[in-house]
């Protein structure tokens, strides 16, 4: 059992989607996350273990490499594709409640900011960290965040921006969410964001996507 799970983790880490996928070259012709997840289910391995000991481990490893600049965005995107290829086999078990995720992150870019590459990376790595992600997209106004929090009780909120000019919107959205939902956990990130700024507005902070997973896992 553990052999299959570690193979799944390796496929996710290396971005090996399926047997047909040509990338990476040294795994050409080998089964990918898609086939191996199906095989694991067929062998009777618990879906929860496939998620937390297979797919999540692979995404954690690539997230750590990304944090240390050992790999770059294309590698993370391929890993995410492999992770989703495995995850699709687990969907029925999410719906039935047989597989539990750690919680929900509602995520979007601050009102006025249209840059979604960083936000998408965080969404993928957080989902690959075993969390459910509700992605509100770009240029998200306060009321859209509020509605999403109301429909996902107990969720955390992630706000991203690339622009210095939208940092003030990030501050306003964070303040309003904290007022409306006391105790809600908000994490922010993006190129111009610093720990000091996050502290000042009462939000969590990570410089990289993997840090967002650690923040959520810490339950702050």
């Amino acid at each position, binding site marked *: 059992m553990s052999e299959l799970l570690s193979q799944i983790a390796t496929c996710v880490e290396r971005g090996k989607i399926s047997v047909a996928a040509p990338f990476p070259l040294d795994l050409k012709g080998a089964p990918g996350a898609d086939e191996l997840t199906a095989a694991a289910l067929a062998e009777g391995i618990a879906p929860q273990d496939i998620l937390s000991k297979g797919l999540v481990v692979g995404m954690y490893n690539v997230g750590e490499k990304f944090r240390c600049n050992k790999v770059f965005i294309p590698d993370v*995107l391929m890993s995410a594709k492999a992770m989703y290829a495995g995850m699709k086999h687990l969907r029925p078990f999410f719906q039935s409640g047989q597989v539990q995720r750690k919680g929900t992150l509602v995520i979007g870019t601050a009102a006025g900011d249209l840059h979604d590459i960083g936000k998408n990376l965080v969404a993928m790595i957080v989902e690959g960290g075993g969390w459910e992600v509700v992605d509100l997209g770009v240029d998200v106004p306060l009321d859209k965040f509020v509605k999403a929090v109301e429909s996902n009780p107990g969720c955390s909120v992630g706000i991203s921006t690339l622009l210095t*000019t939208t940092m003030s919107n990030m501050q306003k959205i964070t303040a309003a969410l904290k007022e409306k939902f006391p105790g809600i956990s908000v994490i922010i990130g993006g190129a*111009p964001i610093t720990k000091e700024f996050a502290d000042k507005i009462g939000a969590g902070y990570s410089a990289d996507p993997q840090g967002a997973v650690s923040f959520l896992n810490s339950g702050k």
Partner: protein
Amino acid sequence: MKTIVETVKAGAVLVSDGAWGTFLHKKGLEPGQCPELWCITRRSDVLDIARSYVAAGADMIESNSFGANRLKLAHFGLDSRAKEINRAAAEVSREAAGPNRHVIASMGPTGKILMMGDVSENEVYDAFAEQATALADGGANACCIETMTAIDEACLAVRAAADNTKLEIIATFTFDKTMDNTYRTMMGVSPADMASALVKAGAHVIGTNCGNGMERMIEIVREIRAADGKTPILVHANAGLPENKDGDIVFPETPGMMAALVPQLVSAGANVVGGCCGTTPAHIAAMKKAVHGLIQANS
């Protein structure tokens, strides 16, 4: 007018302009508004920016068309106006530049990642071809494909401009310093990878823009020059990374600080120097003076 390549091959160092985006925000552009639409709705403000760089002594002026490809304009529902907006952007800059300066019209990324498959190569090529054509129609003599991070997208932009216009083609990438002190774009591209791919695709001038201040630009230019000994190099440097000081956005590098590094940038291999985010006409005027000082020192 001689081309940029002819001029720098004859030994000249040229000065480009400074920031547009941060300048537009100073003039009242709100977050979430389409900056490029100002070429039509706030034409006199855009003209004023271009003129201020001419007055600062720039040999070439960009245009307010960075995000004016149809894939980006679609967010504002303005994709059907891509031609009109790009044409207007080039016209405004040409009006400020007059006949004897270059208009190097800005072409930024689409914001899409090709390998994600949510947009095809043809769509990206067509968007850039439409933009480059309209910029040429509006009076640009060069295009500045900039802030690129992915080889595939940048080469599509270069080819779209080369196939459809007579524009002189400049293409620059944005690099970050990694933990092991090498430079890579967020997509993992090194300065050497960039240089060979862009030249092969048909770029006439290559280089780097945005980034984290002037000192790092010198290191990046050295890497590009080591990989490519002859293609002219353009640098549009940020005035450092922006800092948020009690709600005010402050860029740390002053005109004097940036100008002081121009000689090193040129000796590293740069042929055209200018500014990106946070730089102002005062930065460009100081850089122009530094370039002038180099000429005098060499004569």
